[in-house]
C-alpha cells in the first residue's frame, strides 16, 4: 500500500530525499512537518500537491497552530498558504467527523478562505458568506478553532456565521442569496461614511438561482460602488446535491451558461490571435486594439459573462478555485485598484475537494452526522420510526398513484423534503425550481388554475420568503394550492435561521386558508389525503423535524380524508383540559400521564385544525372544565390566539374558565439539541404539568416536578 511505499522511500531512498527536486526551502519545510523521522507525516507535500492521510487521530497541524487570527497569516508565502490549506482540510474533516455538520461545502472553499484572509484585512474588510454552511474554515481562522468541537451544539458555536458570535462574521446568514444585497449595503454605507475598507461577498452557484441575487447585482451595477462578488461555482445547484440515483443535474438555465463560460475555447483562440496581431503592430495601435478588444468582449464572449456585464458587474474568470497562488494574485490586484466598481470573480471549485469519500459520494457528503474519517462512513443510528419527511413522501406517492393530477413542487430541497422519492416514482410530476420559493408558490398557483393539484413542499422558515405570493397569488384568489410545511417548530442544530416558529401565525391569519397540523405520522397521512381532497381553497399542514412516535399506520400508507374543522379527544378527564396542536399533543399526553401521579385526570384533546377551529370541541372543553391550556410549538398569534379570540367572541371567558396559551417565547431560541431547545422554550411536558399545578393552587408541587 502507499504506506509501505514511502517507508521504502524513506529507508532506501534517503539520498533522493536530500536531492529532491523541490527547492531547498521546501525541503527544510518537509523536515518540519515530519514530527518523527520514521512515521510518515499525515499531511505532506507530494509532486502534484498536498496529500492528507485521514486517519481517526487528530492531525498534526504545525502551521495552522500558529494561526489564531487572520493577522497571523499576513507574512506567509504562497507555499506556506498551500500547506495551511492542507492542514485546514485535515482539521475540518477531523472536527466534523466528531461533531457532524456540513462537510463538503467547507472543503471546497478552503483555498478561497485562505486567500481571502491573507489578502484582506478582516474584520475591517468585510467578508460575507452566503448561506454560511461553508464558513467552517473561516471560523477556524478567526479565533474559534479551539471551540470548533462544540459547533452546532447547545451553547457552542453556531453552524452559520453569526454577528453575535464574532466580529469577523460580518452578516448573519442561513437562508441563501442574501450576501450580495448585504454586501452592497455595507459598501454603500462605507462610501457614505468615507471609509476605505473592502467588501467581499461569497455566493455559490446554487444561491445564484434566487431572484434576490439578481436584484442585488442589478442595483450594484447601477450604484457602481466598489464591491467584490466571488461566485463559487461547483456545479451543485440543488441540495442535497443528489437524487436517489446519483448526483442531481443542475436545475435551471443558468448552470448551462456557467458551463459555457468555463469552456469557451473558441473565444480564447480568437483573442489569442487578436493579441498576437496587435503585439506585432505595437505602439498606438495597441491602444486602439484595446478598445476593440473591449467591444469584442461584449459581442463575442461567452454568453454567461455578458449576463453579469449587462447587470453592471465586471466579470473575471473562470479561475481555478483550488489554486491559492492564482486566487491571491487576483485578489491582490483587484484590491490595489482605486475604483474597480462592482467586480464578479468566477471561481470553479469541487465540492468536497481533498477528501476522497466526499468527492466520490453522490451527495458529496453535504451534511453529515458523525463519521469515520478513514472511510467516510457515517454512524447513522437506526431510529425506531422513520422521519416525518419520509412518511410525507410515501403518503404523497400513494395519493399520486390514485390521482394523476397530483404534482409536487420544491425549491432545491429534494432530499430535505423527501420529494426525491416522489421524483423517482413520477419524474414528470415533480418540479425543482431552484432556490426560488416565490416562484414556486406562484408556479403552483398557475398549475392549480389548470386543474392540477399541486403540493408545495417548502420548509416553514423558507416559505417566509414567498409569503406575498401565498397571500396575493394563492389565498386572495382562493386557488387550491396545498402547502406541506416541513421543519415546523424548533429544529435543533441549525438554529434560529431555520426555525419554523411563525407558520401558524402567518398562515392562519389568511381568510381562505385551511390550516391543520398532525399529532403523529398516521394523522399526517390522513391530512395529506384531506389536503388532496380540498379543491376549492388553499390548505396547509405543518410537521416537525424528527421521527414519528411509532403509531400504526393506515392501510397501504394511504390516508383517509378527515372531516374539516373537527378535532378529537384522546383522553377524558375533569377540571383540566389540555388542547394541543400538532406534535405538542404528544407532549400533552406525557404531561397528563405525569399529572395522574398527582391525582389529576386531565382531558387531552387534539385540535387538528387551527382554521377552521372545531367550535363544538372548544365550546365543550370550555364549558366542562375549569382550566383550559392550549399548547403549540409556534409563536404568539397562532393557534392559542385563535382559540382565545373564539372564546372571547362567544362569551366563554365570562364565566369561570382559566385560560392559558403556551407558545414559543418572544425571543429566538439558539441552536442546540432538540431537548435543550424545548426546555429553553418552556414547552416540555414538565412545563405543562407545572402550569396545571400552579393554576390548581399547588405551586410547591409544581416546583418539585422532575
Amino acid at each position, binding site marked *: 500500500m502507499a504506506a509501505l511505499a514511502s517507508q521504502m522511500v524513506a529507508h532506501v531512498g534517503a539520498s533522493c530525499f536530500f536531492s529532491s527536486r523541490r527547492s531547498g526551502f521546501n525541503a527544510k519545510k518537509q523536515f518540519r512537518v515530519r514530527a518523527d523521522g520514521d512515521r510518515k507525516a499525515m499531511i505532506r507535500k507530494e509532486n502534484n*500537491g498536498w496529500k492528507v492521510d485521514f486517519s481517526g487521530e487528530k492531525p498534526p497541524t504545525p502551521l495552522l497552530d500558529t494561526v489564531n487570527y487572520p493577522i497571523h497569516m499576513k507574512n506567509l508565502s504562497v507555499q506556506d498558504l498551500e500547506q495551511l490549506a492542507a492542514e485546514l482540510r485535515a482539521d475540518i474533516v477531523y472536527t466534523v467527523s466528531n461533531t457532524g455538520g456540513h462537510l463538503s461545502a467547507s472543503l471546497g472553499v478552503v483555498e478561497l478562505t485562505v486567500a481571502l484572509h491573507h489578502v484582506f484585512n478582516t474584520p475591517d474588510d468585510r467578508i460575507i458568506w452566503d448561506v454560511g454552511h461553508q464558513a467552517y474554515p473561516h471560523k477556524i481562522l478567526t479565533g474559534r478553532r479551539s471551540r470548533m468541537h462544540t459547533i452546532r451544539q447547545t451553547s457552542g458555536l453556531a453552524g452559520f456565521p453569526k454577528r453575535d458570535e464574532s466580529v469577523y462574521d460580518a452578516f448573519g446568514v442561513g437562508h441563501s442569496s442574501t450576501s450580495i444585497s448585504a454586501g452592497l449595503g455595507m459598501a454603500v454605507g462605507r462610501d457614505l461614511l468615507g471609509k476605505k475598507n473592502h467588501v467581499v461577498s461569497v455566493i455559490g452557484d446554487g444561491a445564484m438561482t434566487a431572484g434576490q441575487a439578481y436584484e442585488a447585482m442589478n442595483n450594484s451595477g447601477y450604484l457602481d460602488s466598489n464591491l467584490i462578488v466571488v461566485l463559487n461555482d461547483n456545479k451543485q445547484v440543488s441540495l442535497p446535491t443528489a437524487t436517489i440515483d446519483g448526483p442531481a443535474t443542475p436545475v435551471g438555465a443558468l448552470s448551462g451558461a456557467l458551463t459555457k463560460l468555463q469552456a469557451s475555447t473558441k473565444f480564447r483562440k480568437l483573442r489569442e490571435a487578436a493579441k498576437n496581431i496587435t503585439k506585432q503592430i505595437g505602439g498606438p495601435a495597441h491602444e486602439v486594439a484595446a478598445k476593440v478588444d473591449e467591444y469584442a468582449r461584449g459581442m463575442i464572449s461567452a454568453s454567461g459573462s455578458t449576463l453579469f456585464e449587462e447587470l453592471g458587474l465586471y466579470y473575471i474568470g*473562470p*479561475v481555478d478555485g483550488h489554486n491559492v497562488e492564482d486566487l491571491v494574485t487576483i485578489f491582490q490586484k483587484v484590491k490595489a485598484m482605486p475604483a474597480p466598481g462592482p467586480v464578479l470573480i468566477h471561481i470553479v471549485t469541487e465540492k468536497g475537494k481533498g477528501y476522497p469519500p466526499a468527492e466520490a459520494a453522490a451527495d458529496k457528503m453535504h451534511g453529515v452526522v458523525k463519521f469515520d474519517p478513514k472511510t467516510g462512513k457515517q454512524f447513522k443510528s437506526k431510529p425506531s420510526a422513520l422521519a416525518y419527511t419520509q412518511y410525507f413522501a410515501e403518503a404523497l406517492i400513494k395519493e399520486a398513484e390514485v390521482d394523476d393530477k397530483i404534482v409536487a413542487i420544491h425549491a432545491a430541497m429534494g432530499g430535505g423534503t423527501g420529494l426525491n422519492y416522489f421524483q423517482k416514482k413520477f419524474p414528470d410530476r415533480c418540479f425543482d425550481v431552484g432556490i426560488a420559493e416565490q416562484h414556486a408558490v406562484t408556479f403552483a398557483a398557475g398549475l392549480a388554475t389548470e386543474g392540477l393539484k399541486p403540493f408545495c413542499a417548502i420548509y416553514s422558515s423558507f416559505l417566509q420568503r414567498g409569503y406575498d405570493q401565498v397571500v396575493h397569488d394563492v389565498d386572495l384568489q382562493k386557488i387550491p394550492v396545498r402547502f406541506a410545511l416541513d421543519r415546523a417548530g424548533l429544529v435543533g442544530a441549525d438554529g434560529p435561521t431555520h426555525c419554523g416558529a411563525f407558520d401558524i401565525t402567518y398562515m392562519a391569519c389568511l381568510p381562505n386558508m385551511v390550516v391543520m397540523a398532525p399529532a403523529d405520522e398516521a394523522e399526517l397521512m390522513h391530512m395529506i389525503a384531506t389536503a388532496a381532497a380540498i379543491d376549492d381553497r388553499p390548505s396547509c399542514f405543518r410537521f416537525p423535524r424528527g421521527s414519528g412516535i411509532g403509531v400504526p399506520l393506515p392501510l397501504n400508507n394511504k390516508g383517509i380524508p378527515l372531516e374539516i374543522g373537527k378535532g378529537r379527544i384522546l383522553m377524558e378527564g375533569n377540571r383540566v383540559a389540555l388542547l394541543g396542536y400538532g406534535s405538542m399533543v404528544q407532549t400533552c399526553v406525557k404531561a397528563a400521564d405525569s399529572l395522574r401521579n398527582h391525582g389529576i385526570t386531565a382531558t387531552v384533546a387534539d385540535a387538528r385544525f387551527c382554521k377552521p377551529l372545531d367550535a363544538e370541541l372548544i365550546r365543550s372543553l370550555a364549558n366542562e372544565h375549569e382550566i383550559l391550556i392550549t399548547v403549540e410549538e409556534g409563536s404568539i398569534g397562532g393557534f392559542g390566539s385563535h382559540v382565545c379570540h373564539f372564546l372571547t367572541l362567544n362569551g366563554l371567558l365570562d364565566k369561570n374558565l382559566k385560560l392559558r396559551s403556551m407558545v414559543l417565547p418572544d425571543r429566538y431560541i439558539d441552536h442546540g439539541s432538540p431537548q435543550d431547545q424545548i426546555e429553553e422554550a418552556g414547552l416540555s411536558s414538565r412545563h405543562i404539568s407545572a402550569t396545571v399545578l400552579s393554576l390548581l393552587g399547588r405551586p410547591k408541587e409544581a416546583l418539585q416536578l422532575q
Partner: protein
Amino acid sequence: MRCGVILPGTSTAPVHLRHGAGTVSWIPPKRPGLRAAGLKARAAVEEGGRVGASFYDLLGISEGGSLEEIKRAYKKMARKYHPDVSPPDLAGEHTRRFIELQEAYETLSDPSRRARYDKDLARGLRFAFSSRRRFDQELEEKSAWKNRWQDQLETLKRRSVQRDSTENLSWGARIRRQRDGVSIE
C-alpha cells in the same frame, strides 16, 4: 507485488493523479543516478487501479534507444499484435495491445513528445494513455483560464484608473470623487 512485467493481454487502468507512484522497473535504466534509485524503490499503488509499464517496456527497448531502434521494435510488435493477424480468441487483447503500441510509437517517435514523456518518467509518473491526455487537456484548459483572467485584470486596471472621471455620473463615482476630494481627468 507488481513487478512491471506486462503479461500479454493485461490491461492498464488509468492512474489517479493524486497517487503518483510508479512500478519497480525491471529494465535497468541507462541513466544512472538517484532518480533511478527512487524509482526502483517505489511499489505499486493498490488503490486507484494498477499502473502500466512505460512505453519503453511495451516496445521492449531500453530507455536511451534511438529512433531506429524504436521504429524496428514497433514494426516487430505491430506485426505480432495486429488484429488482422492475431488468432481469433486473442483478438480482443491483441487489439488493445496494438493500440497501446501505436500510442507508444507516436509519443516516442516525436522528439518533443518524447522529451516530455521522459521528463514525466523521471519524476516517476507513469500515465496510462487516456489519463495523460486528460491531464494535458486539463492543464491546457487551466492555462487558458489563467491567460484569460490575466487579460481581464489588465483591462479592469485600465478602466479603473479612469473610472471616476467627471463623465461618470454613477452614484459610486460621485461619492468616490467627493471622498477623495480630487477631480480626475
